[in-house]
């Protein structure tokens, strides 16, 4: 019991929160970048442009079938070989954004495909151009369908940032490791604190998702 009291000292708690802040920072930037990139890639794959869509499709398939850890290794250990030297934070953001945008591209493509083709035909028959129909009729309906899947993808992104501890990203997981490095008796208290912190952040995000679903429905 004493271990728990000592482990949650003010200094340690503050250090954990600093780590949480890095986790949130990396997650939020990656979520924004991957959402934009994922939407563009997903649309390109959906509209079947000659050659371009095939190449984009290939790249998406390639990235989706690689372990995220490997992509992190590429951005941290591989890129310096071509003269791009990123610190652990930006390497992680880049790796997460690449990986997640491929995941999101597939979610967005299948979300658009799931909208009844009659919607597009109807909109076109009423005189809307292809892109007008896409923007005003198809995408809003697709978005509603995609929200739960996209949010669960974001939740796994937040949890996956912990993989980057291996390249010494000073995130929540790494800071917990440093704390139980000071005293090995703190290991269980730290795992418990990690569980609570990851849960709270991810659960808040899923509450937001339920709210959005209800509002858009």
């Amino acid at each position, binding site marked *: 019991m004493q271990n728990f009291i000592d482990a949650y000292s003010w200094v340690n708690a503050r250090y954990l929160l600093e780590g949480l802040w890095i986790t949130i920072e990396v997650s939020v930037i990656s979520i924004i970048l991957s959402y934009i990139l994922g939407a563009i890639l997903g649309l390109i794959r959906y509209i079947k442009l000659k050659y371009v869509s095939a190449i984009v499709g290939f790249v998406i398939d390639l990235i989706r079938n690689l372990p995220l850890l490997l992509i992190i290794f590429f951005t*941290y*250990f591989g890129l*310096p070989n071509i003269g791009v030297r990123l610190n652990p934070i930006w390497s992680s953001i880049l790796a997460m954004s690449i990986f997640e945008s491929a995941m999101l591209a597939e979610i967005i493509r299948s979300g658009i495909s799931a909208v009844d083709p009659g919607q597009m035909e109807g909109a076109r028959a009423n005189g809307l151009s292809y892109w007008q129909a896409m923007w005003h009729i198809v995408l809003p309906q697709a978005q509603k369908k995609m929200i739960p899947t996209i949010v669960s993808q974001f939740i796994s992104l937040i949890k996956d940032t912990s993989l980057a501890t291996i390249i010494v990203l000073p995130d929540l997981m790494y800071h917990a490791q440093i704390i139980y*490095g000071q005293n*090995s008796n703190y290991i269980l208290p730290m795992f418990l604190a990690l569980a609570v912190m990851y849960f709270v952040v991810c659960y808040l995000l899923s509450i937001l998702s339920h709210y959005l679903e209800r509002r858009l429905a």
Partner: protein
Amino acid sequence: MKKLIRYLGLLTSLCVLALVLSSCGTKKAASQSVLSRAEETNTIVWGVKADTKLFGLMDVKDSQIKGFDVDIAKALTKQILGSKGKASFIQVSSQTRIPLLKNGNIDAVVATMTITPDRQKVVDFSDHYFNAGQSLLVKKGSSVKSVKDLDKTGTRVLAVTGANSVANFQKVAPKARVLELQDYAQALQALKSGQGQALTTDNGILLGMAAENPGYQVVGSAFTKEPYGIAVNKGQKAFVNKINQALKKIRENGEYDRIVKKWFGNISGFDYKEAEK
């Protein structure tokens, strides 16, 4: 089928591109002189561990890495660049230290790194700056008295990934199974929860753990010699020479002795005279 061929073609061209790019890169990193860059910027960038007690551990209170390796690096910086020279520290792990050195993110590694022939193929080492020996940590009252007791089928021994201790242990006790964990605290936790009969790594680290956990003790004498060296990228002979000169100087002027005593002087059972050799 046509689609498959197109995919394969694309994949090969990507691989070729990656190869070409990586070959340009390596030449560039190797040709830069670390020493002249360090003198220009008046800074040496050291790779140190931040999660290893006694050698390099982040202090949660002021976010400074502290430990034996860090103090050695600071002392060497003063010798190489003069009293105004700056030592900057980048956190490494056993897995990242060699790639970071090769990529030029860091100038040298001082991170409990044992000099081994395999590693000498990829990096250059300075003279050794610490003599560790590998030992065993067990629960008090355990039947394990030395490494021989573990050389049976069915025994499981805990170690840390990326460290040299795994290969060493397999040489002396080939019948035992080695479980590799992410860091020392996790390995100790695994020992406590009975995942293995013993934990093996360098004795300094084990004695530190035993001091913290009264129910555990270090048994048997050290069964290997682990000379720690400072690693530098290949082709930086001038820098290695500078480090060796600086090491010699701090050994002569007593600074080295002071650093060893500061970190290991009050660990009971640790023979720091042996470590200094």
